[in-house]
């Protein structure tokens, strides 16, 4: 392990000198830079106002580029960008599954792209602490027009971009369908059959689940239904009822406290346990770590409530194929003794784009201009394709896909390049934008409803971001598996461990690992960064 890790770093460090030389020579003579990309030579030969500078940008490789289109580095959209944008862009694909590791490796080797982006703010904060990216307040001020104005108009994006008081990244707003995240679905036809109403409190939820279990809602005369099934979000969904996310920090009387150590967390565990004890969830959910078992129960019509995402096209489509009579409804979050919390939602910021610390100023200028262009006009084509080829405008504003297959083949992958965007869906547009066949329309209609339901209740988030101190992440990396295991013992252990006893153990572990000291550090960090941590939902 040591050998391979240091091998990685050292071999790459060896290349880094080369990499830097290459970069500096390119920036010194832009002509050489342009000629080094033979793929773009046809455009380069066209007369243009001055030679464009080259910048490199990371792109997630999701394996979506069909072979006929080329690859992530070279395809119709990269060419289109080079023709239309104020820069020549070299895209550096990184495998989505290992994006952070791959990016870190590229940075260690000095061959990282000029612009590095990730969704995960924690990662960007780590890069800032590691000295791999640079603050850019001054450059945005100096070179930007569109982006500068956009950021001034959207102050709610500021916390995401600010690390240690400086702007280390730029971003744009998410569209609402990517802000909504967790969600619940319920079998409306089961509710109707048993003459029940959709639950609104956790007590009602348990009552409905019990009836789903005992009263044979699928009417096959067998005791084979599982009332509630999970996907990876389920635990977060159940904790959200009690205003405690496992990984979030909460302000309790002005004091920063970790979600897992709160009194409320005990109630969340007790609720989870009661579902397990009463057989309302799959008893083997523990080993269903990829949630395929749960998905199967759901898509074969054996499950009544799905703790998952607001948008689940494939699961719903599969269920409707297997059980055509199934009727689905999005289920709104339910109230606990602490009130009604929304289910997990993302913050307003979309991908965070950071600037490599090796970037010289002239490149930064080009990059900023490129980002201006992207935010101004560039993103639209990469999201929807060419007008009247891939989409047509309905009501002059809603881009409706003309041919789903053509879109998937020629445009879908280009989303990766639209790193800034001003797109904002409206729920009622979803059916307009979807394919027009009956099933797709049914799914789209319920999806539109689900989006509204998912965003109906505000999700409690006291500070925009968790403390990005190394001591904090170190503690949590050690604490998380220990705490998780205690929680599982509480849930599955029957009488052997009460939620109270479990909570005590969790707190003891937290203390043993130095949690009190870390709380102090977190509090100091909070006092210092308060102004950047306010969550403003618009």
């Amino acid at each position: 392990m040591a050998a391979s890790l240091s091998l990685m770093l050292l071999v790459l460090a060896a290349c880094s000198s080369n990499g830097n030389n290459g970069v500096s020579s390119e920036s010194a003579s832009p002509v050489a830079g342009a000629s080094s990309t033979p793929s773009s030579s046809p455009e380069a030969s066209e007369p243009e106002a001055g030679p464009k500078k080259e910048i490199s940008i990371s792109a997630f490789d999701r394996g979506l580029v069909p072979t006929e289109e080329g690859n992530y580095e070279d395809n119709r959209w990269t060419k289109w960008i080079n023709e239309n944008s104020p820069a020549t862009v070299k895209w550096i694909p990184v495998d989505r599954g290992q994006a952070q590791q791959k990016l870190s490796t590229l940075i260690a080797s000095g061959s990282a792209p000029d612009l590095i982006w990730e969704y995960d703010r924690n990662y960007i904060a780590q890069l800032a602490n590691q000295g791999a990216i640079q603050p850019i307040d001054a450059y945005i001020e100096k070179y930007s027009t569109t982006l500068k104005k956009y950021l001034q108009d959207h102050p709610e994006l500021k916390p995401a971009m600010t690390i240690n008081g400086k702007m280390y990244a730029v971003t744009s707003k998410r569209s609402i369908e990517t802000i909504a995240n967790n969600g619940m679905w319920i079998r409306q036809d089961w509710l109707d059959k048993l003459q029940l109403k959709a639950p609104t409190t956790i007590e009602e939820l348990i009552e409905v689940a019990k009836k789903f279990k005992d009263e044979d809602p699928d009417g096959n005369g067998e005791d084979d239904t599982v009332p509630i099934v999970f996907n990876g979000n389920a635990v977060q969904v159940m904790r959200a009822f009690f205003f405690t996310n496992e990984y979030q920090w909460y302000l309790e009387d002005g004091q920063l406290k970790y979600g897992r150590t709160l009194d409320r967390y005990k109630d969340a565990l007790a609720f989870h346990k009661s579902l397990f004890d009463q057989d309302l969830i799959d008893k083997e959910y523990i080993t269903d770590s990829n949630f395929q078992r749960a998905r199967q129960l759901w898509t074969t019509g054996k499950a009544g409530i799905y703790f998952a995402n607001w948008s689940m096209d494939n699961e719903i489509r599969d269920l409707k194929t297997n059980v055509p009579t199934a009727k689905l409804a999005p289920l709104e979050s339910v109230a606990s003794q602490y009130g009604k919390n929304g289910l997990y939602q993302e913050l307003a910021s979309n991908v965070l784009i950071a600037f490599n610390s090796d970037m010289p100023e002239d490149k930064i200028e080009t990059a900023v201009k490129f980002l201006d262009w992207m935010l101004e006009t560039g993103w639209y084509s990469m999201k929807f394709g060419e007008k009247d080829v891939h989409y047509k405008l309905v009501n002059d504003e809603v881009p409706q896909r003309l041919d789903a297959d053509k879109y998937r083949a020629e445009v879908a992958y280009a989303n990766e390049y639209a790193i800034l965007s001003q797109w904002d869906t409206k729920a009622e547009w979803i059916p307009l934008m979807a394919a027009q066949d009956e099933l797709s329309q049914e799914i789209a209609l319920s999806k539109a409803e689900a989006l509204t339901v998912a965003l109906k209740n505000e999700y409690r988030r006291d500070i925009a971001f968790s403390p990005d101190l190394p001591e904090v992440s170190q503690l949590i990396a050690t604490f998380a598996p220990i705490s998780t295991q205690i929680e599982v013992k509480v849930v599955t252990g029957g009488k052997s461990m009460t939620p109270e006893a479990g909570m005590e153990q969790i707190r003891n572990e937290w203390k043993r690992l130095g949690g009190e000291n870390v709380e102090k550090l977190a509090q100091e960090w909070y006092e210092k960064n308060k102004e950047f941590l306010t969550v403003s939902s618009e």
Partner: protein
Amino acid sequence: MKERRPGSGAAIARPSSARTNINTPRASFRSRLKRDRHLYLMLVPVIVFYLLFKYAPMVGEIIAFKDYRLGDGVFGSKWVGLKHFESLFGSLDFWRVLRNTLVLNVYGLVFGFPIPIILALLLNEVRIEWYKRTVQNLLYLPHFISWVVLGGIFIAILSPSTGIVNAILERVFGIEPIYFMASSAWWPVAYTLSGIWREAGWGTILYLAAMASIDPQLYEAAKIDGANKLRQIWHITLPGIRSTVAILLVLRMGQMMDVGLEQTLILQNQSVLDVADVISTYVYRVGLQNMNYSYSTALGLFQSAVGLILVIGVNRLTRSFGERGLW
């Protein structure tokens, strides 16, 4: 090839010609170099490969004694002495993951190591060729299936509600279903068994090769002396593969501190983290996900050092038993 032939007298059977026509070692080296220059030339890329990719990177181990930052690089980061080792040995988690790693490896060694030998012995005695080949292929198959798939199958087989193992236990022995994968006591056993399932068949290859090189005359002689099958295995086959076993054992000892990341991540679940959190998953979580490169390098260095000590120790031991060992 001649020298490496395993078996009783192989070690002594050095070709004597090379010895006799050269007198001093220096002259021998030069003239050999000259004579076999083409062969040595062919070796150069391999040596370069090892120097470049196996030895040069070891310089990077210095980050175990530094506070490595991506922005500062391997050489630019500041020295911190033994800080990372101190926090490593001072951390309770380290001892937990070390214990788990060792437990899984000891299980693997005690149960996993002899099984390929037993399988090879059995296969070696099979006389019907097509049957032997079919069985061999079936045994090799799991080696080529990824852990994602095997893990899924394994978890399904052991499921308390739908798994075949629990169904048999219940029907035949009347035992209540056991949730093997979620029990801290059973999980290491299940882990070891899954490892055996995947690799034992593949592991027989080397032993079968060693058995094939045993002189058939020995068996004939034994038969004439009236030795039955078991006697033949005991007195001919096993001694014949003794040195192969010794070498594989020494090599296995070098991995006592490693546990495969993939297998662990796929088989582990929330309720067995106390026994399933091993060095590799710990390094992944603390080192890579939190960018504590120096800390995880320190851990890796410790891991390698222990591995090296074990290899040397066991190598000595095998040599004291009269085997050749690794060197």
